C-alpha cells in the first residue's frame, strides 16, 4: 500500500508541475465529459471553462429584495474553473445511486470483499459508501431529464466523489463565490442578463412559468457564459457553510481570493432559487441556506444523512478546478 501511495503522490506532483500556469492556458474552453456506468450505459454532460477574474460579490443596499446577509458588497478574485452547463440530472444521479447504494450488496459479501481488498493492500479503492436506499422514489415522479432533487449536501458531495472516480477528474461543488460569479457571467445586473424581472421567464423556470414543478434542464436561454438554469428550476448546493457574516469576513481582504466561506458551520448554502421562486429570490445575489423544515419530510431521528424527502426544489451542479490537478491525500 505504501508503495502505491508513494507512486500516486509522485505522479500527482509530476502532473501538477506539468499543469502549472503555462499548461492551464491550454485548458479547453469547453468539453463534453463522457463515461460509462457499470451497466455499460454511456452518460455525458457539458462543461465550460469559467475564466478567472475579479468581481463584486453581494448586492447594493438599494437592490429591491436585498437581505442583510448579501452585504457588504466586496471584491472577490477567482482562479479559472470549470462548471457544468446544467444542473445535475436525475439520469446521472440515478446511475450514481444504483452503483453506490449501501444496501446493494449482501452485508456478508461486502465483508468478504473488504477482506480481499485489505489483503490485496487496496482498502481505499472503490470505498465510496453511497446513500441508504430511499424510502420511496428519489425521482419523485420526474423524468430523468429533470434535475436531481431531494439530496442532502453530503449526498451531493459523495456524488462528486463518485463522478471523480468514474471520470478521473476532480469534480466538486462550486464555492458560493464561484456560483455567484458564474451566475452574473461578467455583468453587474440584478439578474445577470439585466435588471428587469420581466425577462426572467426567458432564462429561468420560476413561479411565473414552471407550473409548480421542476422542468428538464437546459431548455431556457443560457447566460452569457453558456450556463443554463443558473436561476430557477432547482436551488443549487454550493461548497460553503452558511453564515450571515460570511461577507463581512470576506470583505476584510481586498480582494478576497478564492473565498470558501466559514470553516465550520451547521448548514450549507444553496443558490439560484427554484421553480417556485419569485423575482426577488432569483436575484444573482440572493442567498438561501438549509432550514429546519427542509428535513420535515423525514419523520425519523436521527434524520437521514442522505435525503431530504419531498424537497424537490434542491439540487446541484458540479464544478472542477482548472489550474491544478488535485490529488487525494
Amino acid at each position, binding site marked *: 500500500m505504501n508503495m502505491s501511495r508513494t507512486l500516486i503522490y509522485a505522479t500527482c506532483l509530476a502532473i501538477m508541475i506539468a499543469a502549472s500556469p503555462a499548461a492551464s492556458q491550454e485548458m479547453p474552453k469547453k468539453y463534453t465529459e463522457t463515461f460509462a456506468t457499470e451497466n455499460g450505459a454511456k452518460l455525458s454532460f457539458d462543461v465550460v471553462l469559467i475564466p478567472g477574474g475579479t468581481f463584486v460579490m453581494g448586492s447594493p443596499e438599494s437592490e429591491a429584495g436585498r437581505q442583510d446577509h448579501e452585504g457588504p458588497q466586496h471584491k472577490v478574485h477567482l482562479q479559472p474553473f470549470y462548471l457544468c452547463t446544467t444542473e445535475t440530472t436525475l439520469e446521472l444521479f440515478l446511475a450514481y445511486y*444504483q452503483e453506490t*447504494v449501501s444496501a446493494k450488496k449482501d452485508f456478508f459479501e461486502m465483508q468478504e470483499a473488504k477482506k480481499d481488498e485489505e489483503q490485496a493492500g487496496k482498502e481505499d479503492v472503490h470505498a465510496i459508501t453511497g446513500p441508504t*436506499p*430511499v424510502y420511496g422514489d*428519489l425521482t419523485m*415522479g420526474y423524468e430523468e431529464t429533470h434535475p436531481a432533487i431531494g439530496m442532502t449536501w453530503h449526498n451531493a458531495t459523495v456524488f462528486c466523489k463518485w463522478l471523480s472516480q468514474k471520470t478521473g477528474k476532480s469534480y466538486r461543488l462550486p464555492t458560493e463565490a464561484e456560483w455567484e460569479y458564474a451566475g452574473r457571467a461578467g455583468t453587474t445586473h440584478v439578474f445577470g442578463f439585466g435588471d428587469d424581472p420581466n425577462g426572467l421567464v426567458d432564462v429561468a423556470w420560476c413561479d411565473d412559468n414552471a407550473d409548480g414543478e421542476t422542468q428538464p434542464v437546459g431548455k431556457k436561454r443560457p447566460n452569457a457564459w453558456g450556463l443554463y438554469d443558473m436561476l430557477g428550476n432547482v436551488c443549487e448546493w454550493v461548497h460553503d457553510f452558511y453564515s450571515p457574516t460570511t461577507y463581512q469576513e470576506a470583505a476584510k481582504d481586498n480582494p478576497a481570493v478564492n473565498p470558501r466561506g466559514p470553516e465550520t458551520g451547521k448548514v450549507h448554502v444553496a443558490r439560484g432559487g427554484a421553480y417556485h421562486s419569485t423575482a426577488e429570490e432569483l436575484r444573482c445575489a440572493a442567498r438561501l441556506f438549509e432550514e429546519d423544515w427542509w428535513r420535515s419530510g423525514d419523520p*425519523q*431521528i436521527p434524520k437521514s444523512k442522505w*435525503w431530504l424527502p419531498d424537497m424537490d426544489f434542491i439540487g446541484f451542479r458540479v464544478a472542477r478546478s482548472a489550474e491544478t490537478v488535485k490529488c487525494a491525500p
Partner: protein
Amino acid sequence: MARSQQTQESRQEAAVGRGLGRFTSSESDKGTGTSRRDFLKTSSIVASATALGTLGIGPGVFAAGSDIIRVGMVGCGGRNAGAAAQALTADSGARLVAMCDIFMDRVKGKRKILKEQKPDQVVVDNDHCFAGFDGYKHVIESSDVVLIANAAKFHPLHTMTAIQAGKHVFVEKPHGIDPAGVKLMQHAARLAEQKRLCLVSGLHSRYHTGYGETVKRIQDGAIGDVIAIEENFLRGPYGVIPRKEGLSELQWQCSTQYHFRWLSGDDVPQSLVHNLDRASWVLHNEVPVKCHGLGGRSSMTQPIYGNVFDHHSVVYELDNGVRIYAFCRTTTGCHNDSSSTVLGSKGKASVTGCRIWGDTNWRWNGRCNPYQIEHDVLFKAIRSGEPVNNGDYMTRSTMVTVMGQISCYTGKEITWDQINQSDFYYPPKPEDCHDGMEPPVKPNAHGIYPVPKPGFTKMI
C-alpha cells in the same frame, strides 16, 4: 407528480412484547388462533377492558400549557425517536419520562440524541430505561401518553394495554399484522372511545393538508366518478444491518424486524398501508369485497433478508365495481415509484402529488408537515379534553392490507368477510413473547429461512 419520499435508514424499530413462550413451532404447523384458550384470552382482555371503561376512567385533566404531560416511548427506533421529538415540539408541557426497547443500547442511544435536541423536556433517568419484551408495561405505568412504534406485531397489544391503563396513545402503522391483531386494535379503539382517551394513528396521509384538499375535490366530483385507483410503493430494500456477534437468533430477528414476517407482517401492511389508506379515504372508507394478490422473492433472497417477499401486487374489487390496483416492491436497481393515482370518468388525480387533471386542472402548492400535525392534534385534544380517535380508519385500512398480504402468501382470493371472520395470527401471540424464547422461524442448514409458497401455504 408523486412527491412521497421518506428515508429508511434507522428504521430499525425493535420488537417489544411479553408473556410465556408457547409456540416454538414453525409457522406452517401453527394453529389458526381459534383455540378455546386463545379465545378466552382475547375475550378476557376485551371483557376486562370494557369493565374498566364502564368505570368511567377518563383521560387525565391537563390545564392548557401549565400541567406536565408525561410521555413514554415503546420502541426506540428512528421513527419513534422522531415521534418523541414531534410530541415534545407539539406541547411545551410534555416531558419524555420513560423509554423501552428490546435493546438497551437503542434506549440509551436515542435518549442521548433526544436530550441534545430537547434538553429541558427529556427527563428519562436510568431507572426509566427498560429493555426486553416486558419493558412496555413499565413505560405505560410511568406515562400519560404512550408513543408506540416498534415491531408491528406488538402494536395492538401495547395499544390495548395502554388504553386499559387509561393512557393516551400515538401508534405507528400498521395497526396489526394479522386478523387477530387488527381485531384487538379494534377493541382497543372502541375502549379508547368509551374511556374518552386519544388514539392517534401514524397513517400520516390523513393529516396532510394537501392530500386532504385533493381527496375532498375528488369526492366533490372533480374527476367524475372514480373508476379505479393505482397505488405504487416501489423502492429500495429496507436497510440491512450487520449481525452483531453474540446476538441470539431471536435478538437478531428482532434487530432486523422488517425482514421477518412474524414481527413486521411484510410489505403490504408495512408500506402499502399508506397507499391503501389513501385509496380507502378517496372511496369514503368503503371496503373491498375481495382481493387477489401475487408476490414472491426475486433478488432479496440472501439470509440477511429474512423471510419476507420482495414484491407484491394486489387487486381489490369493491361492491360498486371500482378496483384498486396496488403494487409494492423493495428491490435495488428496479424502477421506483411512490404514487396514488385516481382514475375517474372525467379526469384523473394524484393524491400524493396533490393534483387534479379534469374539466378544471388544479394543484395544491402548499407545504405541510403531517408528522408534526399528528402530534399537534393529539396534544391539543388532550389539553382540551375533547379526545381524538383514529380507530375507525386505522383498523379498516390495516385490515385491507392484511387481506392483501395473505392473498399474496396463499395465492388464493380472499374476501372481506373471510378476513374478518378469521382469527389467524403469526405465532407466537404477542402476549406470549418473552426474552430468551425460541424464535418461531429458524434458518435451514444454508442459513435460508422458509418462505410461503403461494398455492400451498394455508393461513385462513
